[in-house]
């Protein structure tokens, strides 16, 4: 999949755990795991906004395009 989700990297930089972030943005830990592995079909802007707010980052820090 050309879109890579670098959530693990940002979580490490901000020293935050997955379940912590999941609780803050209103996702289950299971769904956040699915998001981290890039198996999602789509991400809502509201979810992206919540992630960027909690991790104090830009969407480009979370999402990366890499051609196959």
């Amino acid at each position, binding site marked *: 999949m050309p879109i890579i989700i670098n959530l693990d990297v940002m979580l490490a930089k901000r020293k935050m755990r997955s379940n912590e972030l999941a609780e803050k943005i209103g*996702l289950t830990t299971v*769904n*956040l795991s*699915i*998001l981290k592995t890039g*198996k*999602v*079909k*789509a*991400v*809502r802007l509201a*979810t992206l906004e919540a992630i960027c707010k909690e991790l104090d980052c830009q969407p480009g820090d979370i999402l990366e395009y890499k051609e196959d």
Partner: protein
Amino acid sequence: MKSISPVRNVANILYHLTRGLTIIYWVIAAYVISITILAKSGVKGLPLSVTNETRFTIYYPFSKTPFFLLQDERTFLVTTFLVILFYGLFLVLLLGVFDTFRQKKLFTPKGVQRLTRFYLANFFLPVIAIIILLLMGEPINDLLIITFLHVVLGIFIYFMTAIFRQGLELQIEQDLTF
């Protein structure tokens, strides 16, 4: 408080009605088939009486009240048993279809599988039964109309299954949208 949809309510009622009917049907079918097989095997003391050379009556258990009339002819017995087995299976598959419609999530892989089995059974089983009877040299006139109706039902459910497959794809996308 979210109310249960009318579709789920109707499906729930139909599911429980069909489940009761299926249980009763299979009990009766098992009774009739076992008594007939035992009678043909020469077992005595069964709740049945021979009306004339070709007809016999099965009674209710432990009574002399007539319950089921059968003709002791190969055509009649084969046709009757094929019909009994088909409609027994039909009721079980129909139960699965109603159960699909009473679930909270409508578009599931299990639901698509149930609809697929239902349309395949309606489409192919009556046709296979007709072929069996033709190969046995038995007349099929009585079964042609009912076979046609089941094939039409099978086609209709086939289209519904296609819609459900599309719905399932959209459901998966929805579920994997965060």
